[in-house]
């Protein structure tokens, strides 16, 4: 699994590979937690590529409801159909027609369940942002993989999708949902892993630059920052430095481009010129 993920551009620690493998084999959802930018969402994308299947994504937000997550009727079309029927002698027949699958708009969850050609990867992103109520609803779907639509009856999953849930821990995920899933916590990558990630994602970055960037970012994470930089920031920054034709870090360039890595006003202000110089020097060693 680890090698397979690596072939598809994801440098996975054994922890991650084991978790993904178990989730796939045990047909259980995998709940992935970790700081922003450690590559939670990326796992789903890689898994979809690796299995050669479709990635269906549901982005959670406050106020997300069933109509946007599961299904909605196509009202304008239903209405047109009704008007066209005019004074039909048999109203119940019309009802059958307009409440059929043809008039059903499938939202991500239903789409994942009804996909005919093999199981898709279903990514439920940032579940912590949705309301508790939605979490409870999800619990039902994830345990039975079936949906009951009052007008249509129960729809069962053709294939049980591979489900990944991610959370930034902006609130605690309910215990019941956690129990339904397998659980993985992703830490910030180690130095070696980060170098490999930079090398694989930013081909223009040489060994020296990649190592210096990784060490610099690592030392940033050791400080108490409001927003610790994630891998996504490291990659952005590496790309920026390559674009500026740098083959090593120097204090001036670093302070000009630090906005790629530190995205908090206080953090940026606290890291003054001299400190940058010391950090750069330490990273160059």
């Amino acid at each position, binding site marked *: 699994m680890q090698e397979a993920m690596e072939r598809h551009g994801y440098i996975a620690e054994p922890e991650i590979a084991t978790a993904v493998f178990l989730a796939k084999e045990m047909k259980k959802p995998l709940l992935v937690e970790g700081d922003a930018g450690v590559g939670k969402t990326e796992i789903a994308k890689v898994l979809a590529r690796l299995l050669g299947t479709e990635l269906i994504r549901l982005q959670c937000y406050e106020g997300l409801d069933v109509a946007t997550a599961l299904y909605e009727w196509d009202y304008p079309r239903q209405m047109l159909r009704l008007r066209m029927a005019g004074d039909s002698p048999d109203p119940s027949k019309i009802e059958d027609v307009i409440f059929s699958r043809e008039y059903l708009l499938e939202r991500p969850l239903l789409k994942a369940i009804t996909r005919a050609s093999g199981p898709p990867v279903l990514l439920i992103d940032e579940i912590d942002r949705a309301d508790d109520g939605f979490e409870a609803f999800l619990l039902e779907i994830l345990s039975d993989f079936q949906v009951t639509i009052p007008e249509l009856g129960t729809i069962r999953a053709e294939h049980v999708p591979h489900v990944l849930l991610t959370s930034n821990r902006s609130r605690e995920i309910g215990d019941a949902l956690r129990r339904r899933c397998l*659980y993985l916590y992703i830490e910030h990558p180690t130095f070696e892993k980060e170098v490999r990630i930079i090398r694989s994602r930013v081909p223009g970055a040489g060994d020296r630059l990649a190592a210096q960037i990784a060490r610099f970012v690592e030392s940033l994470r050791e400080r108490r920052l409001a927003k610790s930089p994630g891998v996504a920031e490291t990659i952005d920054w590496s790309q920026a430095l390559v674009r500026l034709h740098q083959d090593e870090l120097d204090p001036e360039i670093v302070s000009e481009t630090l906005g790629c890595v530190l995205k908090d006003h206080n953090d940026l202000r606290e890291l003054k010129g001299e400190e940058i110089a010391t950090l750069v020097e330490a990273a160059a060693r």
Partner: protein
Amino acid sequence: MTVGGLAAHLASFAGALRARGVRVVLSDETDALSALTLVDLADREEVRRALAVALKIRRRDRSVFDELFDQYFSASAREAAIAEAARTRSVPHAAVPRRIGAPGWRNVEGETARELPLGDTPAYSPNALLRRKSFEECTDADLAPMERLLIRLAEKLATRPSRRLVPARGRGVMDPRRSFRSALATDGEFLRLARRSRAIEEPRLVALCDTSGSMDAHTRFLLAFLLALKRAARRTEIFVFNTSLTRLTSWLAPGKVVRSLERVSASVPDWSGGTRIGECLETFVENHLDATIDAKTVVLIVSDGLDRGDTEPLVRAMRAIRSRARRVVWLNPLLSDPRYEPIARGMAAALPFVDRLLPAHNLETLERLLPWLAA
């Protein structure tokens, strides 16, 4: 190893985890067992990883997990433990947590706190005197009526509309789904439009209450107030701190406030001791911030700000809390003294991160606090 032996060993491992306070339930164990059938059992690290995933070990429990894993799954311990598990089929018992000596409630009249019936007394006319009486002068006899007032007060807590839409009458946006359903009954004519509007949401509160010696006269009533708040807004989290931080939420069963208070004072180490506000708030930031505070949460800090410690950690913690919470309200009983100025070192350091500094020495002042807690 046979599957049966493995299962027994796993059960005793799970029991040991539970004994150390890691939440592991039966369904986790069955998950773990089926995970183990999928991995290479000879590879110890692989087994460790698989168990961590299948038992849903959270980050904060990881060190306990690793420690116990080493005990239970080292080559020699494994065989021994299996033999042991096979013989007794029992799970190691949790060590009974030692009670740390806690002083009882400060009691003005020298009698032990009585259990006071709450009953379903109907409307209680607020007693103006009681409302103005300072907590410092209150005795146990005042606690019962005080408690009822507190509960009524907490129930007044205003609520805020959520972004979620729920069916509503006569206001809000049109709900096509329900409208359509009802139109069917009238042959497709929309005689009545169904509507949806924003749901009313409970406020989210996180209260951090100082229980050190200098706060002693007020703690009891302030905690009673927090408990009352917890009844009105179920998602209230309560922490107390003095020299260390304790999460109270799990201790608080619904029911009588007095009994909860007794249980709490008996279980919190160093009750009425000194304070280290900064360190305690930092512990809070490290362990609980992510899970308890979001953009909807109002943080309520109850303390006199008298701190002997270094202010640096306090500033760091307050910044972290401020950046995440919706509002930070600081209740300071000392504010009742008109001559008081917030110059105590801790208070002065925290002030820039506080949205509202309010007094809290009697019921009347707590009443004035409510609008600031409304979500």
